[in-house]
C-alpha cells in the first residue's frame, strides 16, 4: 500500500536526520541524566521501605514501589516534552516544512514522525527506567507487566506529544508550550500509567500478578487508540493550513 511506503519514507528520513545530528537524542539523554542524578542525590540518604500489605495506608504510599512508579512517569513526561517537539519546530524554522507539504500527504507525515517519536520515547524509557529502579533499589515484582505498561503508555504519550508539537511549531513563543498544551490532555494516561507501573513494581501486588493492572492496560490501550485516531483525523488542519 503506497500510504505505508510514504509514511515509511518519512520515518526513515526522521531516523537518518536524527542519527546524523542527534539533536533530540542528546536533549532527551541529557535531561534524563540530569533528572536521574538529582533523584539519586535526593534519595541517597534515606533508603525507602518496601511495600508490605499489612502496613497502614499512609505508610504504604511512601514505599519504594509507589515513589518509583510516580517518579518514572514524571521523568518520562518532562523528558518527552524536551525532546519530542524538535521534529516539527526544526522543519518550520528551516523551511523544509514547505518542501514536505508540497510532496507528502498530512497523514503520512504525522505517521512517520509519530513512529520516530515513539521509538525515541521507547529508547529513553527502556534506558531510564532500569536506572531509576536501581537508584531506588526497586526490583519489579512483574517485569513483563512493567514493560507492557510502559510500552502502551509510550504509544499514547507519543501520539499526543507529536500532534501538539505540530501546533507548537506554528506559535512564536515556543518554550515550555509543548508541556503546557499536552499535560491536561494526558492526565488519563498518567493516572493509568502510574497505577499500572506501581502494580508492576509490586505495590499492592507483591506476587506480581497481572490481574491488578489489567484495567490500567485497558485504559492505556483505549487512550492510545483514541489519541492516534484523533491525530490522524485532525492533522491535515494543522499541517496544511
Amino acid at each position: 500500500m503506497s500510504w505505508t511506503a510514504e509514511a515509511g519514507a518519512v520515518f526513515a528520513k526522521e531516523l537518518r536526520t536524527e542519527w546524523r545530528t542527534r539533536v533530540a537524542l542528546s536533549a532527551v539523554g541529557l535531561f534524563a541524566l540530569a533528572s536521574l542524578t538529582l533523584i539519586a542525590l535526593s534519595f541517597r540518604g534515606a533508603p525507602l521501605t518496601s511495600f508490605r500489605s499489612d502496613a497502614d495506608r499512609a505508610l504504604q504510599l511512601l514505599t519504594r514501589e509507589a515513589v518509583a512508579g510516580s517518579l518514572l512517569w514524571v521523568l518520562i513526561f518532562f523528558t518527552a516534552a524536551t525532546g519530542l517537539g524538535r521534529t516539527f519546530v526544526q522543519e518550520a524554522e528551516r523551511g523544509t516544512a514547505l518542501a514536505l507539504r508540497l510532496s507528502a500527504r498530512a497523514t503520512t507525515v504525522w505517521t512517520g514522525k509519530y513512529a520516530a517519536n515513539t521509538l525515541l520515547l521507547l529508547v529513553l524509557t527502556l534506558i531510564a527506567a532500569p536506572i531509576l529502579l536501581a537508584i531506588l533499589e526497586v526490583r519489579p515484582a512483574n517485569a513483563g507487566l512493567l514493560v507492557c505498561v510502559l510500552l502502551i503508555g509510550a504509544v499514547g504519550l507519543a501520539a499526543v506529544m507529536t500532534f501538539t508539537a505540530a501546533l507548537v511549531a506554528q506559535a512564536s513563543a515556543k518554550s515550555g508550550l509543548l508541556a503546557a498544551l499536552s499535560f491536561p490532555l494526558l492526565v488519563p494516561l498518567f493516572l493509568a500509567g502510574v497505577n499500572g507501573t506501581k502494580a508492576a513494581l509490586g505495590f499492592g501486588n507483591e506476587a506480581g500478578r497481572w490481574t491488578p493492572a489489567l484495567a490500567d492496560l485497558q485504559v492505556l490501550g483505549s487512550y492510545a487508540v483514541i489519541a492516534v485516531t484523533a491525530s490522524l483525523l485532525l492533522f491535515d488542519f494543522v499541517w496544511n493550513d
Partner: protein
Amino acid sequence: MATVAKYLLGMWIAATVVLAYRWLPPAEGFAVPEAAPIVALHLPLALVAIIAAVVAAAQGVRYLTGRNLASDARSKNAAALAALFCLLTTVTGSAFARVQWGGYWNWDPKQTCIAILLAVYAAYFVLRAGVDDPEKRAAVSGVYIVFAGILTPMLGYVVPKYLAKFSLHPTNTQFDSRYWTVILFATLGFTGLYVWMQNLANRFDVAGLVLQQRLAEAEEAPAPRLVTMATAASGADTEATAWTTR
C-alpha cells in the same frame, strides 16, 4: 436579548439565591449546615462549564470547516466562559471542602475533572497568544480545542475510577427534592447568564471584525496590471519600458 429577558434573568437568579439560603434544609450529611447553599450552586456551575466547553469545541469544528473568523471568535468566547465557570466551580468546590472537611482540596473526582478542564483552557489561551496571524491562530486554536474535546471526556470515566478511593467526599450525596429544585433553578439561571455573556462577547467580536474588514477595504492598494512583453520589448508601452529600466 430582549431587555425583559435580562431583568427576568436577574430576578430569577436572585430568587435562586434566596431559595438556596432560606429554603434549603441543612442536609444531615454535612458537618456545617450553612454549607448547603454552596453545594446547590456548585453543581450547576460545573454543568454550565461543560455546556460552554461543548459550545467551544462545536464552534471550533465550525471554524475548521467554514473558515469564518466569527466562528473562531465564538469558540474563543465559549472557551473563556468555560474557563470562568470552571474557576467558579473550583472555588465553590474548595470553599465547600474547606467548610466541610477542613482542607481546601479533597481530590473529589468531579472537582478534579473540572480543574483539569480549566488547565486545558489555560493552555488554549497560551497557545492563542503565541500565534499572531488571525487566520493561523484561529486554525491552531480550533484544532487544539477539538483535539482536547476528543480526549477530555475520558476524564469523566478515568478520574473517578482512580481517585474514588482518595476522595473523602461522599460520592453519592443524597439530595432531597428541595435540593434538586434549587439545583434546577440555579442551572437554568446560570445557563441564562452564560448565554447572555456569550451573546454579548460574540456581538462585540463581530463588530470588531466588521470594523477590521472596512479598515482593510479602505486601504488604498494599487491594482495589479498585466503588461504584455511584446509591447515592452518594442518600447511602445512607456510604462512597461520604464519598468524594465527600474
